[in-house]
């Protein structure tokens, strides 16, 4: 069997396992939209600041549910991998001819398939909340692709933790860390309108800022080659780095001869 076939079968399993946990699904659907809703309402007036790049704050925040969705999917995939190690399911897979990389990517693929459905719901809900989308219909697959690449990057990084620790709890434990990255970015305010120097420095070096700005550019300004190029570049570099570390962790975990 080819690696692609194995990824498909393992992805199917990850997908089914997720949709059979409705509580978790509901959270991943409701929380990002609720967050968009309350933050956009509470900060509505911020759009009046001189130099604010979007015509309304909901436009400005519209990229965030996609990042949230990517984050939850990535962490859930890693948590499930931790659980598989913990329960011995990974050993079960290791005894089959499944390739190592297929086990990791299959796990992630199921999550990505699911998150694309979530993205569609976020998109419609965002439009209903009054957000616009400047890039037009052709921008939609680009939006989904960039957000999904973010999920792959975060998921690979989180899977490293799952593989090193062999525990789902350890992955849950790093959840706040990813929230730190999200909150200390240009999520709530464009970087040039951030007054605190220390915060701007953090947001400047935080790769999540560039992922958000890439997604945001499709929403508020249409086709911005620089923002999109930076977003994709940061996502791809992060993926390469994260896959490298997770692959090493996988080899250390799977001592299969």
């Amino acid at each position, binding site marked *: 069997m080819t690696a692609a076939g*194995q990824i498909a079968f*393992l992805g199917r*399993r990850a997908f089914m396992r997720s949709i059979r946990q409705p509580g978790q699904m509901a959270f991943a659907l409701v929380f990002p939209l609720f967050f968009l809703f309350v933050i956009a309402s509470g900060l509505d007036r911020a759009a009046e600041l001189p130099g604010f790049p979007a015509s309304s704050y909901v436009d400005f925040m519209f990229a965030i549910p996609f990042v949230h969705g990517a984050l939850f999917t990535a962490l859930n995939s890693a948590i499930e991998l931790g659980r598989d190690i913990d*329960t*011995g*399911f990974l050993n*079960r897979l290791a*005894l*089959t001819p499944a390739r190592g990389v297929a086990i990791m990517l299959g796990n992630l693929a199921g999550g990505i398939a699911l998150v694309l459905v979530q993205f569609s719901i976020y998109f419609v809900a965002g439009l209903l909340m009054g957000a616009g989308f400047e890039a037009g219909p052709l921008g939609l697959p680009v939006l989904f692709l960039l957000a999904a690449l973010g999920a792959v990057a975060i998921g690979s990084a989180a899977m490293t933790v799952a593989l090193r620790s062999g525990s789902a709890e350890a992955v849950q434990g790093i959840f706040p860390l990813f929230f730190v990255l999200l909150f200390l970015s240009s999520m709530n305010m464009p970087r040039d309108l951030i007054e605190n120097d220390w915060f701007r420095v953090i947001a400047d070096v935080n790769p999540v800022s560039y992922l958000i700005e890439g997604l945001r550019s499709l929403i508020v300004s249409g086709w911005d080659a620089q923002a999109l190029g930076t977003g994709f570049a940061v996502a791809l570099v992060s993926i390469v780095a994260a896959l490298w570390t997770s692959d090493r962790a996988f080899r250390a975990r799977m001592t299969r*001869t």
Partner: protein
Amino acid sequence: MSAIVAERLVREFKAVRAVDGIDLHVAEGEIYGFLGPNGAGKSTTVHMLTTLMPPTDGRATVGGFDVIKDGPKVRETIGAALQEAALDPFLTGRDHVRLQASLHGLSRAERAARGDELLDRVGLTVAADRKVQTYSGGMKRRLDLALALLHRPTILFLDEPTTGLDPQSRNALWVEVARLAREDGVTVFLTTQYLEEADVLADRVGIIDHGRIVAEGTPSELKAEIGRPTVQVAPADPDERDAIVRTLDRFGAPVDAEPGRIAVRLDTGHDLADVVRALDGESLKVAHLELDAPSLDDVFLAKTGHRLEGQAEQPDPVGA
């Protein structure tokens, strides 16, 4: 040809030698019981033989393939049900069978046919479309066994297959394992911490303690090796206890006895009649007297100097 061969197999974890130079020869079609307490090195041995973990030293072949050099070929040959039936609670029994069959490269038609056949064989046809989280402990073990058999392996590894099962589920599993060996000629390597399981099921037993095999043979050979039976006496009058102890001492070495009783393992040349005559000669009254043939537990005690842990506490009946 031996189905499983190990020579001076060693596995170290940091400073600990979990497996300390094990030699094994398991014949084709044999059920080999690997008996030992928790932490004796049973699972580590299984992990090495199933290629999940490389040995630190020594060598082993399974189905004629080297576990270090020919990992993929070994895995094609073997089926394994490892400890704690590792199943996904959110998938159904049939989902598991399909996934595992796909990963083993079975064709679509074969997947369905073989899956149905095995689900039927382990009695899970009715429950096949229920999520595994609704299964009882016994059902999970049976599904685990079915998954291990999907790709028709000739050698089967079962790591503590009945730990935590109620007696009924345990018996059902024993019947199935025995059938696999007798009818299908599958070689079974089974670890257990239950003496009864090894006694009932295994053709040969290896006793492992602190990473070393301390005894090996058929259950009856091992018991015969201990040889001598024990005599157990309950004094009728507690005041005569010391006198009875002194009398019994003449016939053999004292061994553990049930509370309030005294027991000795009879030396060669003595039998029960000698003991009865001696007690009678000294007018010592006994409330109870019995002769016990040696059990695997006695073998274990004789070989390791301690009893098999967990024997006192039989597994909880976790049926639900």
